[in-house]
């Protein structure tokens, strides 16, 4: 059984010219969820305002150069970006438009969690209209479950009713590209429960669905509870059963399974997330944000004070460049091998897998007189035997053009990907 390659799974492969995206991190939320290991925390009005100012300075700093950088996507994620005031969001997007060349057809996504858009319909409508007018054309909602008890258990602040209402209002206000997140394998949840959730989410009719199995991340309340033995992780076997059944369900409902955790109706794949899997450029702004530009990967500091201290001063135009003091947690200039290795393991997350041509393009060095497959296996000679054994056992497809995981290969993809790092 192969990972389904239906009609929608091939509609993004023609792009070989690099795209560029901008990721903006908003590390605030109303309340931290029990499973959440993201860089996010509840905050009052004044730190949010302070952060917005700093963020705008960083957005500007990263734009410095000869010409305006053209952006194909903008993604405002978090945390819960919708906890920012409309005016704050508006200033951020204005800054983006001022310092960058945002393509007219650019995908601009906002993560907007149910329960943060206002309790009264009139408020919600106003907010949504404001988002539309800023140019936001895609919403991503952290629904996670449509079961009230489970939502409560996870520490979410919303109810299934909130989701239905926000969805209805978003449609009313003209949003025609909406992603809903689903989390499965929550402790105590069985496969049938998860399928119920999936059905109800499908019933809401989003264009895009992301499905994640819950991971017990260190430092989260769930992790602590599991350590104490208060809750038990869903067994691997059951988790995988659930995953594959959800995949089937979504496929039947017309969603193309284009990446390990992502499903979309035709033409509605996440353009921004695709950048990550295609070795495209993305600029990351905000606390702890990651970026990949000029062949260099970076991650901003996760220390709020350090971040604010650095970016709260308004740069004058002369100094508006990275003077070397930018607070990074990590900066790494990729080698050709880093590039091909990342191209392979991120590419393997996609249904199409990774073509030898694309992998070698990331590598950037030619081997004249050899075909792509030969060159590829020359670079990964130490991985070939094991890769072929995965192929023989039905976890991986290796042909003349490239590699891709099978559906059962997804389950053990780390082992396969680690061959190429």
């Amino acid at each position, binding site marked *: 059984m192969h990972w389904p390659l239906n009609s929608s799974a091939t509609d993004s492969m023609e792009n070989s010219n690099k795209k560029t995206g901008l*990721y903006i*991190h908003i590390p605030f939320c109303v309340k931290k969820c029990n499973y959440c290991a*993201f860089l996010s925390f509840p905050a009052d009005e004044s730190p949010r305002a302070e952060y917005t100012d700093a963020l705008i300075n960083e957005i500007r700093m990263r734009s410095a150069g000869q010409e305006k950088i053209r952006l194909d996507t903008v993604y405002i*994620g978090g945390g819960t970006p919708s906890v920012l005031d409309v005016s704050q969001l508006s200033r951020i997007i204005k800054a983006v438009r001022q310092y960058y060349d945002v393509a007219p057809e650019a995908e601009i996504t906002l993560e907007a969690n149910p329960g943060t858009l206002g309790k009264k319909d009139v408020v919600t409508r106003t907010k949504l209209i404001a988002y539309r007018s800023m140019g936001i054309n895609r919403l991503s909602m952290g629904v996670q479950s449509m079961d009230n008890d489970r939502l409560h258990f996870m520490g979410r602040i919303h109810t299934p009713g909130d989701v239905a209402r926000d969805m209805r209002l978003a449609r009313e206000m003209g949003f025609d590209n909406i992603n809903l997140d689903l989390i499965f394998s929550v402790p105590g949840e069985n496969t049938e429960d998860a399928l119920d959730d999936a059905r109800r989410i499908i019933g809401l009719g989003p264009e895009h669905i992301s499905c*994640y*199995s819950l*991971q017990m991340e260190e430092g989260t309340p769930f992790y602590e509870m599991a350590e104490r033995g208060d809750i038990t992780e869903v067994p*691997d*076997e059951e*988790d*995988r059963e659930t995953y594959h059944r959800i995949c089937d369900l979504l496929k039947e409902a017309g969603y193309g399974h284009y990446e*390990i*955790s992502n499903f979309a109706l035709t033409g509605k794949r996440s353009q921004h997330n695709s*950048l*990550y*899997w295609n070795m495209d450029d*993305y600029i*990351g702004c905000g606390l702890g*944000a*990651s*970026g*990949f530009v000029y062949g260099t*990967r970076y*991650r901003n500091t996760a220390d709020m004070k350090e971040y604010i201290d650095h970016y709260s001063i308004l740069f004058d135009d002369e100094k508006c460049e990275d003077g070397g003091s930018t607070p990074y947690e*990590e900066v*790494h200039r990729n080698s050709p091998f*880093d590039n091909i*290795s*990342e191209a392979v*393991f*991120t590419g393997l*997350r996609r249904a199409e897998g990774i073509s030898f041509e694309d992998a070698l393009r990331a590598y950037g060095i030619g081997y004249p007189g050899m075909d792509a497959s030969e060159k590829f296996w020359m670079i990964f000679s130490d991985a070939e035997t094991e890769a072929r*054994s*995965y192929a023989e*056992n039905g*976890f991986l497809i290796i042909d003349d053009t490239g590699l891709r995981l099978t559906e059962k290969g*997804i*389950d*053990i*993809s*780390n*082992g396969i*990907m*680690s*061959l190429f*790092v």
Partner: protein
Amino acid sequence: MSYLDYIRNFSIIAHIDHGKSTLADRLIEKTGLVQARDMKEQYLDNMDIERERGITIKLQTTRLQYKANDGQEYILNLIDTPGHVDFNYEVSRSLAACDGAVLVVDATQGVEAQTLGNVYLALDEDLEILPVLNKMDLDSARPDDARAEIEDIIGLDASEAPEISAKTGMGIDEMLEKLVEVIPPPQGDPDGKLKALIFDSYYDSYKGVIIYTRIFDGRVKKGDMIRMMNTGKNYEVTEVGYCIPGTVPAEELKAGEVGYICGSIKQVADARVGDTITLAADPADAPLKGYKKAQSMVYCGIFPAEGEKYENVKDALEKLQVNDAAFNFEPENSAALGYGFRCGFLGLLHMDVITERLAREFDLDVITTLPSVVYKVVMKDGRVLDIQNPSNLPNPIEIAHIEEPIVKADIMTPNEYVGSIMSLCQNRRGNMIHMEYLTKTRVQLHYEIPLNEVIYDFFDALKSRTRGYASLDYEFLRYQPAKLVKLDILLNREQIDALSTIVPEEEAMAKGRGICEKLKDIIPRHQFEVPIQAAIGQKIIARETVRAYRKDVLAKCYGGDVSRKKKLLEKQKAGKKRMRQFGTVTVPQEAFTEVLKLDDGR
């Protein structure tokens, strides 16, 4: 008065951790040889591993100068002794080079098994013993009890034993005075025929082997042709001198003195501990007594790990051997692990030290297989084979019987732990010879126990059952017939020779089950099910299964954080590098040594 009257040759003996090396440090500091600021802790323990483990393996010798209260300048030759039962022979040779010994007893612990063991070794060499009570700076010190124990258990008069703290320096001056008074000066005839005892040697890449020696009679200088009386080899002396510490050349060494000799000797095996040096032109009649060739008691295989070169391992082993006469190796070929080496050691600690040095000093990645003792296999045709590699055990049909080495183990313990020690020893096929109360609360247990049972984790088990209070001393006793069988391990139905062991027949079932369970925990999940089986001959006696893995996937690559994901994958890959491929099964390298550590306590 002769120059001999102003020399004192002595060792410090103690149970492990009683502060021997710390005391040595303090003496060196007191006598001004090494500035306090240059002192690393435990100056004499010059190998990192020793310093980390707080034990001394390799001997060090130091010449100290001390001005006593009588106004005389004395030369104090401190001959350090290794602090582990594996090195008893070296201890005995070091002691043979001395005229007296400082017996360090931890005033918070009292007399321990090795205290006693070392005292007996010292008494065998007719040494004058000066007991001292150490760790007097601690609140928990019980000097009166310790004194009573020294008198009751060892039979030494401890009434005047100096009370010291090697750590703080308290009482060191009094101890040195006492030392000069109690320990007799050496005797010997500087004009007699040369007789010099080798009590240690090490390899120096510039000077060749440096021999540490005590001259009993005669004298030796640069240019002399010397002869090793037991090995019969001759060498020309290129340098003699004193160890202050380090090597400081001198004109000559003469009777009663302690120092070093160099003679372009290529490896320490040519200057064996215990051998007697004489002059080739005018040899002594007979060597000094007590020479023994170091004998390996424990063997294991050392193989290059995945990606490590055979040649590199060979070079490193050769370098280690040059410096360690007790360590030997020969090439070995394993079906599972490929080309490697069978290595012989004095004991388990010696083995640990060598394998750790391979990793640390030579940066090598090696796999060590289960340690094994040497079995005497008596064949039906009358031949007797020495087998230390389970894979080489002949077909059982041709074997008349197998004999295994038995050691005499002396365990000293507070009486409340006697019960749990007895059950431990019983589990390990120990046979109690007798038990005695040394004091009202301290007991010594005498056991005869197969060496095979001691080498794995006996010491750890003993320590954990007695909260560290029991102490152990053991020595080889004899070979004794036993009902033994070879236990094979099969992974995915393939026999892995490097996991075979020789075990008592009656325990084969339990051992087989234990090993399978352990392997089940150690072996990671594969793409397919991996059966683990234990077998005697064709008969499967235990089985476990490592289930195929179901899930190894990261749901999300959030916020484009490719670097973090990559690190996870790199970690996973690095983990796999420490694994070994057997056919289709991947086994972590620690499996080979961990597998038999089946703690009795569980």
